[in-house]
C-alpha cells in the first residue's frame, strides 16, 4: 500500500494534492502502520523470505535425520512419525502459501504473523530431530524409560479407544468442577465485594481455607466422600471457587467510587449499580481469576486422578507406570499437555473478546 504517497508533493507549495488528502482520510489502521514504518531494505526483505522458509528446511532436516541415520533400537511401524512430520510441514506450507497470496493482494497481517512465528516453528522441528537423535538413533536417553516419538505415536494410536475414554472422563471432571467453582466463586466474590455484611462472614472462611493447597484435601475427601467422582469435583470446585472469589472480591471493591456516583445521578438503582457498573468494571480482575482458577483446576484434577479416581488421564498415567509401559505414559502426557494448552488458549480468546474496550486505550 505504499502507492498512497507515490505522487510527488506539489513542488511549489509542498502541500499534498487534494487526491492525496482524500486518500489519507480513508486510511485504515494497517495502512497507517505501513506508511509510518520504515521501508524495509531489499536485504531485510530477502531475509524475511529466508526466515519464513526456514521451518520447511528444518522439517526436511528432521525427516532426513529420521530416515538416514541407522536406528539404535528396534522401531516398529516407522512411517507414523514420518507422516506426522510431513503433516506438520504441509500445514505450515499451506499457511505460508495463504499468507503469501494475501500479501500479494496487499494484506500483510498474516504474513507478518508467519514471519514472527517462523523461528519458533523451525526450532520445534529441530527439537523433534534432536529428540529423535538422542532416543531412537543413539540411545543416549534410554528406551523404554524415554521412548522415541514413533513409539509414543504408535502406542497412542493402538490404545486410542481407552485413551479417548480417559480424556473424556478428565474433561468431564475438569469442566464440571471448574464451572461449579467459578459460578459459586462469582456469587460469593461479587456479594462480598459489594456487601460489607457478607464480607464480614465470608472473609474469615477465605482466610482460613485460602492458604491450604487444594491437594491437601484429597486424602480427606477420598475417605469421606461417598463417590470418588463427586469428591474430585468438590476438590476442583473448591480450588476454582477460591481463586474466583478472591479475584472478583478485589475487583468489585476496587471500583472507583466516582463511577457509582455518576451512575446514581443518572438514575441507576442499587441492583443496577451491581450489575451495570460494579461487575463490568471488575471484569478484567474477574477474568484473571477465572484463568487462575483453570490452572489450579488443572493441577487439582491431575492429583485427584493420580491419587484416587480410577479413570481419566492422570489415572491412565499411574496405571501405565505400574505396568512399566512408559510409552503409554508419555502418550497420556502429550494428550494432557494438548488439552490444557487448548483450554488456556480458549480462555485467553474469551478474555480478549470480553475486554475489547481495554484495547487501544490512549494513555
Amino acid at each position, binding site marked *: 500500500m505504499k502507492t498512497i504517497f507515490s505522487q510527488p508533493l506539489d513542488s511549489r507549495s509542498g502541500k499534498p494534492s487534494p487526491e492525496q488528502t482524500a486518500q489519507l482520510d480513508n486510511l485504515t489502521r494497517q495502512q497507517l502502520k505501513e506508511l509510518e514504518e520504515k521501508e524495509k531494505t531489499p536485504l531485510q526483505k530477502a531475509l524475511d523470505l529466508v526466515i519464513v522458509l526456514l521451518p520447511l528446511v528444518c522439517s526436511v532436516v528432521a525427516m532426513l535425520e529420521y530416515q538416514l541415520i541407522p536406528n539404535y533400537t528396534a522401531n516398529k511401524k516407522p512411517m507414523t512419525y514420518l507422516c506426522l512430520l510431513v503433516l506438520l510441514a504441509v500445514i505450515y506450507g499451506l499457511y505460508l502459501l495463504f499468507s503469501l497470496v494475501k500479501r500479494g493482494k496487499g494484506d500483510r497481517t498474516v504474513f507478518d504473523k508467519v514471519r514472527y512465528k517462523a523461528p519458533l516453528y523451525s526450532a520445534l522441528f529441530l527439537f523433534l530431530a534432536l529428540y529423535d537423535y538422542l532416543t531412537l538413533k543413539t540411545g543416549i536417553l534410554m528406551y523404554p524409560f524415554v521412548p522415541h516419538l514413533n513409539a509414543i505415536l504408535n502406542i497412542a494410536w493402538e490404545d486410542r479407544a481407552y485413551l479417548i475414554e480417559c480424556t473424556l472422563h478428565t474433561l468431564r471432571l475438569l469442566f464440571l468442577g471448574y464451572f461449579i467453582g467459578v459460578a459459586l466463586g462469582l456469587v460469593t466474590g461479587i456479594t462480598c465485594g459489594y456487601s460489607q455484611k457478607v464480607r464480614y462472614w465470608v472473609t474469615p472462611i477465605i482466610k482460613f481455607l485460602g492458604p491450604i493447597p487444594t491437594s491437601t484435601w484429597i486424602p480427606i475427601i477420598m475417605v469421606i466422600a461417598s463417590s470418588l467422582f463427586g469428591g474430585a469435583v468438590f476438590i476442583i470446585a473448591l480450588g476454582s471457587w477460591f481463586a474466583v472469589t478472591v479475584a472478583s472480591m478485589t475487583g468489585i471493591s476496587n471500583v*472507583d467510587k*466516582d*463511577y457509582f*456516583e*455518576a*451512575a*446514581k*445521578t*443518572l*438514575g*441507576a*438503582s442499587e441492583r*443496577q449499580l451491581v450489575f*451495570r*457498573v460494579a461487575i*463490568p*468494571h471488575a*471484569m478484567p480482575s474477574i477474568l484473571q481469576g477465572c484463568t487462575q482458577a483453570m490452572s489450579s483446576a488443572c493441577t487439582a484434577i491431575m492429583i485427584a486422578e493420580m491419587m484416587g479416581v480410577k479413570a481419566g488421564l492422570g489415572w491412565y498415567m499411574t496405571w501405565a507406570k505400574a505396568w512399566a509401559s512408559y510409552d503409554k505414559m508419555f502418550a497420556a502426557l502429550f494428550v494432557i499437555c494438548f488439552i490444557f494448552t487448548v483450554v488456556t488458549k480458549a480462555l485467553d480468546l474469551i478474555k480478549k473478546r470480553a475486554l*475489547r*474496550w*481495554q484495547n*487501544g*486505550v*490512549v494513555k
Partner: protein
Amino acid sequence: MAENRHVTLKLEGVSKSFAKVENDEVTHALNNVDLTMESGEFISLVGPSGCGKSTILRLVAGLIPPTTGKITVNGQEVTKPSPERGMVFQKPTLFPWLTVEKNIAFSLQMQGKLKGNEDKVERMLKTIGLEDFRDDYPGQLSGGMAQRVALVRTLINEPEILTLDEPLGALDAFTRMNMQDEILNIWRQKKQLAVMVTHDVDEAIYMGTRVIVMEANPGRIVADIPIPDEYPRDRSSQTFVEYRNRILNKLHYGGKHQ
C-alpha cells in the same frame, strides 16, 4: 422538546461537616448556608479550595445528606440522587466498557426508557458533533471529547437542575472556551437551573447570571453578585473587568483597581 417545570431550589441553614480519616477531628465544609435558586438562572460558585462549593453540589445532587438544615426542590426535600438533578463531574467518569453511544444511552437504559427514545441519543451525539465516534470506547477519546459526552449523558434526561462540578477544570484553554459557549447554548435553549462550580473567576462571570463567592474555614457565602449582562459576554469589556475586580477583592486577591 417539552419545557421543564419551574423549580425553586432552596438551601436552608445547611451545614455539612466531615470526619477526618486520620484523626478524630471534624472539618466544617459548610456552615449555615442559605441560598435560593430558580429555573432560568445560571449560578456560578467560586471560591478557594475547601470552601465547600463542591459540597453544595453534592448535597443538591443528593449524593450526601446535610449535617443540619435542609435542601428542598419546590418544597420537597432532597434525599437521594435523581436524574432530575443531573450532575457533570470534573472527571468525565464515562464507563470505559461502554461505547460512546451506549454511555449516552446509559441513563435512559437504567430507567427503562430507552425503547422509543433512540432518537434522543442520536440528537445528543449530534449536539456534540461526535456522530463518527459513536462506536469508540471512552479510552480512545481526548479529554474535551470525553467531557462533551459526559455532558450530554447527563442532559439526555432533560434535568430540571443541572449541576456542574468544575466540568472544564481539566481541559486546555481553547477547548475550555469552546465548551463554555456550548454549555451556555444548551442552557439557553432549555433555561433550566444550572449550578456550576469553578475556580476560574473569568469563567464564573462569563457564564453565570449570578456569581456566588465563597470562603473557607468554615465554608460560607460571602457575596452574591448578579450579572445581568447580555450573552455572549465580552471578556475584555469594562464591566467584565469591574466584575472581576469586585470578585477578586471579595476573595482577597484584589489588584490595584480597588
